[in-house]
């Protein structure tokens, strides 16, 4: 069947600059560029181009410009280009449209409508370069009260995990991302004193030495989950849902289940790794409690248990139930959260923004006086330190970042993660492509990012006259809304600017 789709990208090659070195030919895993030896020209098949810019970045003479193909259908505010093209795809293939990365639709991004405070006159701002500035955070359930008898502390807290910055690498499973990419995340977390998250694909034996910095997931597929895996971690996370695809499971296609991936997931090579939509031992809140305590038993009550859900309509009530079910950490993933593969229709339409979910959950847990019983980690499209510090002021203990970490390693959000081909060597298990991530360099790029953002958080904290992150947690007085409706301000629990 002839495809009626036009190429998404246009490739402009400046022939005066092109030296026929064929770097572009070798860099493109999608086979866009081919060298015609007879005529000494490079031919580019634009229909295969995903716009990842790998060839342009590596072109030694900057001869390539990759841009969105500027073709247009007749303007139509309803039938926009994207919808016409999606219909064509499905008419030609008859299936569910798959995509990668987070929701790219123009839902309101509340971070862009919230501004921060700074000290002027009445209390001093602090210079973080010379004054102490503490970002250390402990994740885990706290008691409401400490008991002391004869000057001795009697209360023993349940297990707590320390992080030096409130930024954690979010779940990225081995199989979805390459071994080198996961290694870089593990090493960066370990060097910086924070955590990485194994995702649901198991933890390769080689990375278990970073277990003290690992959150290991127990998801519906239970891939690679055995007592050794659970015990070689800092935190065990029950994955109920993901912001990019609330309510559905996942398939790691057989092509991506290479020998090492199969070893880590403990399934035969080449089989689809199916993650069922629900965890089939959890059909209700008291079943969640059953699994939380099964994991506590299996890890001898030594690890905090996190429960991750997608942010949905009733997140506040659900979160309250999760805390009562024994969760030590609640992880919320908003509608802009990323993914290696999700049906586009789900990614673009299901869930709620993380800002609103976080505000509602924190508020509910405080009203019910159980906020101390858990830590809250939020995820879903955090782009910079400003987003993060606003989340902490809304009530989060820490923030999960994944897309930002991938971008640090080279990702350009081309959204083709599900193909198994990633020219940046991140979202692939192809050994040739995977080698493009050099763990030494990628680790450095990741720790640089953590350092830069942590410094920025300190700068902003100092500006507000605060020198310990816990003084900002849930401190909504330092936030004001701009361009928000009353209901939005109410849900966020903040005033409008000038109020």
């Amino acid at each position: 069947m002839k495809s009626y789709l036009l190429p998404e990208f246009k490739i402009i090659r400046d022939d005066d600059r092109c030296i026929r070195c064929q770097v572009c030919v070798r860099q493109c895993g999608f086979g866009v560029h081919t060298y015609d030896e007879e005529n000494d020209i490079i031919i580019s098949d634009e229909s295969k181009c995903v716009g990842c810019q790998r060839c342009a970045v590596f072109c030694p003479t900057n001869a390539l410009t990759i841009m969105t193909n500027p073709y247009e259908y007749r303007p139509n505010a309803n039938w926009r280009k994207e919808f016409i093209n999606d219909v064509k795809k499905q008419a030609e293939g008859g299936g569910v449209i798959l995509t990668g990365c987070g929701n790219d639709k123009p839902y309101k991004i509340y971070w862009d409508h919230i501004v921060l405070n700074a000290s002027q006159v009445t209390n001093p701002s602090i210079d973080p370069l010379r004054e102490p500035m503490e970002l250390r955070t402990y994740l885990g359930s706290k008691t409401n009260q400490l008991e002391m008898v004869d000057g001795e502390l009697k209360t023993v807290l349940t297990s707590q995990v320390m992080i030096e910055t409130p930024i954690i690498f979010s779940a990225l499973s081995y199989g979805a991302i390459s071994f080198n990419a996961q290694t870089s995340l593990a090493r960066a977390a370990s060097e910086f004193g924070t955590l990485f998250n194994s995702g649901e694909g198991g933890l390769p034996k080689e990375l278990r030495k970073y277990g003290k910095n690992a959150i290991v997931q127990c998801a519906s597929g239970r891939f690679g989950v055995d007592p050794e895996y659970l015990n070689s971690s800092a935190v065990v996370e029950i994955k109920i849902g993901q912001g990019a695809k609330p309510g559905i499971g996942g398939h790691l296609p057989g092509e991506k289940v290479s020998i090492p991936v199969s070893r880590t997931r403990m399934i035969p090579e080449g089989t689809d790794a199916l993650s069922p939509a629900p965890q089939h031992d959890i059909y209700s809140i008291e079943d969640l409690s059953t699994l939380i305590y099964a994991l506590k038993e299996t890890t001898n009550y030594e690890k905090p248990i996190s429960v991750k859900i997608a942010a949905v309509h009733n997140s506040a009530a659900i979160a309250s139930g999760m805390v009562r079910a024994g969760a030590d950490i609640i992880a919320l993933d908003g509608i802009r959260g990323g993914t290696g593969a999700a049906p586009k229709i789900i990614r673009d339409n299901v869930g709620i923004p993380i800002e609103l979910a976080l505000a509602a959950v924190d508020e509910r847990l405080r009203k019910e006086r159980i906020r101390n019983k858990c830590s809250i980690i939020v995820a879903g499209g955090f782009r910079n330190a400003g987003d993060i510090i606003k989340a902490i002021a809304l009530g989060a203990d820490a923030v999960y970042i994944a897309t930002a970490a991938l971008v640090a390693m080279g990702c350009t959000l081309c959204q083709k993660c599900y193909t198994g081909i990633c020219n940046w060597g991140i979202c692939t298990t192809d050994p040739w492509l995977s080698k493009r991530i050099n763990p030494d360099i990628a680790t450095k790029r990741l720790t640089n990012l953590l350092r830069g953002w942590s410094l920025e958080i300190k700068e902003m904290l100092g500006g507000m006259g605060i020198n310990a992150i816990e003084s900002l947690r849930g401190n909504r007085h330092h936030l004001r809304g701009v361009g928000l409706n009353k209901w939005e301000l109410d849900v966020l629990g903040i005033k409008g600017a000038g109020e």
Partner: protein
Amino acid sequence: MKDLKNIANPFNDDKVSANCSIFGMMNLSGTTFSGKDILTAIKNMRVRSNGLGGGFACYGLYPKYPDHYALHLMYNTREAKEISENFIDKHFFITRAEEIPTKQIKEIIDPPEFWRYFVHPKTELDKNHYDDYVVEMVMTINTQIQDTFVFSSGKNMAVFKGVGFPGDIGRFFMIEDYTGYIWLAHGRFPTNTLGWWGGAHPFNILDWSVVHNGEISSYGTNQRFLEMYGYKCSLYTDTEVIAYAADLLMRRHNLPIEVASKILAPPLWNTIDRMDKKEKELYTSLRQVYGGLLMNGPFSIVIARNGEMIGLTDRVRLRPLTAAVNSDMLYISSEEAPIRLIDPNIEYAWIPKGGEPIIGRLSEKKVIYNEKLTLQDLNKEA
């Protein structure tokens, strides 16, 4: 309660979610027994609840007043009691009024005051309409009078419930001192605090009492369907909706429980496609007309009314239920362990199929399961 909605649903959620442990036991000969065993049974499943609600229902409780509606009310203030009693006096003939005995225990904090009234309707209406009259009066008190709530309104039965673990609630109401031939118990695991005693379960209206475990995904559809028949779903819980559905189907539409259960948990279309013509027509019609009452999503329930106890799960059995029998006794429970704990001589315990009701019926002195099966056949049934 004037602002029942705010009290039952303080955070204005779409509905109030709760999962639970449930237990029911019945003597098929109608012999009454004390609440001691059910207290032991529900305490055994403590990890299935979280201390935010517990309760019991008992049938055959008031043999002295078998024909009276037994109205059970909770009052938060003296004034509420006065206003409510005036209202009851105006609309009912009160044969007897008494405070419900309770025992102070340290686990139970700040309970309301409990009274019960054995009454006959004061109305010109025909006897056939007494039930509707009582429902209307109960709904009026529950939505018009401040700080008052009617939590039980059937004949020869009562509900006792409150905020706490079920074991503590049972001790508070001294249920060991009561006897009945059907007992239900409930241990609650809500997803948020409801420091309100009326919000605990069982839920009761007239004779119907329901204990329920699960979270029905079709709640909005079920609620709006029932509203078309005049029910006010003011508590925002699945349990309330199930009780109204039972009342509508079995009392008002006069359908047998075997059929009603196939409305709440209908067979899948591919099963219906394989049925013979007559059966196919019945099941297709049930889904066409009562599709709005399909309880879609996980549930297991025990429903009781005078003379009958029914256990049922959703059609793909997403919530557990175990049944057991020993001579005259029928047990239905979230788990088997508590049944064995209170009755070590169980003759037969089994896991019912999803959507297949287990019915204990006093009039026939038998257990009905899988439509045609009697108790003797159960041993062969998987």
